[in-house]
């Protein structure tokens, strides 16, 4: 009887190691500063994580399919700048679909290069990182983009509104996560994404359209980036050209922290959400503790390594192993 219980605990640990690490951090930070777990703070952290989070959801598809997407940061700057600019030119109702169309076109280009032309995704998206940055600067002429009438536009609802007692960015994050979670775990397309990332050659010989699957993953990623850009633009109603700079690595860190393999074939939407929340709460927790910020960079890294280690240790059932 005791054995079965221990096995159950073991399998729970192995499956949910990262979740347990997350709860451990929450408890630790709350002891350090009791204000950490107040509803106001929790909502504010999740709301600011929503932008990074929505992007990470899309990148999860790309990573599971065995590829990388380093262009999401500068693509998000692009979406934000474009939608802010078009807001004053053609009105928000047209600006939003126009911005989505342009961002999806960029995603389609990357998807075509990586999926159909089979170019290395690291090179393609690293190149796109600076190419899209250049595109954004060309578009804006390097100037900050601001909506002129900040008080009188309904556009602010996506970043600043609330519904059902929750901030809209959080609801959008939950909505996109639920939708993409269903697609990934309950549809044949989702199965194909895992198959392509797990063993692309085998997938091809099983009749799975590898190129089209990869292409679709980049489209999903671009749609998520456009959604993130929408929230970002609406939250501050103005933006620098560099608003998304550096986010690509945080996004990737969240996805990998959640347990997706960089080699492809594994990962889930739920775990990416946990990865995103860990990053968000670490940043906020360190601010609340009031640690000097030079030290924060180091501590953030230590906590991430600790989380990954706990996750792997839980999967192995022991803290240390001589074999990989």
């Amino acid at each position, binding site marked *: 009887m005791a054995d079965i219980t221990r096995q159950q605990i073991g399998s729970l640990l192995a499956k949910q190691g990262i979740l347990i690490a997350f709860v451990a951090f929450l408890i630790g930070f709350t002891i350090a500063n009791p204000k950490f777990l107040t509803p106001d*703070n929790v909502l504010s952290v999740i709301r*600011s994580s929503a932008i990074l989070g929505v992007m990470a959801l899309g990148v999860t598809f790309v990573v599971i399919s065995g590829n990388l997407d380093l262009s999401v940061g500068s693509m998000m700057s692009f979406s934000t700048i474009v939608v802010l600019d078009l807001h004053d030119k053609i009105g928000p109702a047209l600006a939003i679909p126009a911005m989505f169309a342009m961002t999806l076109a960029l995603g389609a280009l990357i998807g075509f290069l990586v999926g159909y032309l089979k170019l290395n995704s690291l090179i393609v998206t690293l190149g796109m990182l600076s190419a899209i940055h250049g595109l954004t600067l060309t578009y804006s*002429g390097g100037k900050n983009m*601001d909506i002129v009438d900040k008080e009188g536009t309904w556009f602010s609802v996506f970043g600043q509104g609330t519904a059902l007692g929750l901030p809209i960015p959080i609801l959008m994050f939950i909505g996109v996560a639920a939708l993409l979670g269903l697609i990934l775990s309950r549809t044949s397309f989702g199965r194909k994404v895992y198959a392509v990332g797990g063993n692309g050659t085998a997938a091809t010989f099983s009749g799975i359209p590898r190129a089209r699957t990869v292409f679709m993953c980049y489209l999903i990623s671009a749609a998520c980036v456009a959604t993130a850009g929408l929230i970002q633009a609406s939250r501050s109603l103005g933006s*620098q*050209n560099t608003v998304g700079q550096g986010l690509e690595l945080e996004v990737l860190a969240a996805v990998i922290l959640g347990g997706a393999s960089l080699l492809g074939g594994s990962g889930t939407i739920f775990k990416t959400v946990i990865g995103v929340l860990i990053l968000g709460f670490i940043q*906020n927790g360190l*601010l*609340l503790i009031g640690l000097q*910020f030079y030290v924060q960079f180091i501590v953030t890294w230590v906590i991430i390594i600790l989380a990954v280690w706990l996750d792997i240790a839980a999967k192995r059932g022991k803290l240390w192993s001589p074999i990989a």
Partner: protein
Amino acid sequence: MTLRMTLIASTAIVLAGAAGAETMKIGITQNNVGVDSYQTTYESAFIAAAGENSDVDAVVLDAGGDVARQIAQIEDLIQQEVDAIIIWPTNGEAVIPAVRKAHQAGIPVVVTNSNIAEAGFDFVKSFSGPDNITQGARSAEIMCDKFKDMGIEGEAQVVHITGQPGYTTAIERAKGFEDRMPEVCPDVSIVDTQPGDWNREKSQQVMEAFLVKYDDIDGVYSGDDNMGVGALNAAKAAGREGIIFVGATNFAVGYEAMAAGDYWGSIYQSPVDDAEAALKTATDILEGKELPFLNYFDTPKITQDNMGDYTKPVF
């Protein structure tokens, strides 16, 4: 016309141009045009100022934020035998060897906007730019004066959002502010300092955390208005009123927030003044005038009270 003839002809024109008048050929390598409105405006103002001065022949380059490219550009300018080089350093340390090379080639170097590290001062004729320590000090004075008006100078609590850690401008403004505040308002406490990385969104997140951590915040000083407006957005969303926001480098968004009564004050720093001062410093040196090594242009205080004297910044 054959290719050879074209080459000879064009060489002749270049030579004629060089020998003809007493023009000053001044090369500039900028930090990262296009990354923000300030630098974009600076470049167009510099080109305009050089165009108005018929004695100046300007070679305008941009390093795109890349140190290696900037070093290569300085070497190119040395090869072109320009009369003076203006540099807006991408990195205060890494450019020093290239600056030394220009110095050894007998070309005077002017540093603009952000100074290089002290180790390179011997190779530089003059620094033209804003005095960031004074800017920080003036921001402290603006805030202190406002606290005195409100009668809370004996108890006010301030949080401080700085620019990018390690960036000279950020360090100098922070130092100016934190040194000056105790001199003018000894009982005001600066309760927390965190970086906003010159980024509005990052600053908003930092301010959200401050608002949770401190029930009583009377003033926010941010290293530029862009971050200041991010902090203001956070306070507005949290419904916290009566906070005095003071920034630096008055941006259009900061100016608008001042007009709306949400934002108290800032430091007026014009990229047009910055660019014109750099060019003037270079031409003054070439004309043999004596200049101080640190040749600052004035960056006055701007608050809701006197903002009518200043036009809205273009960036």
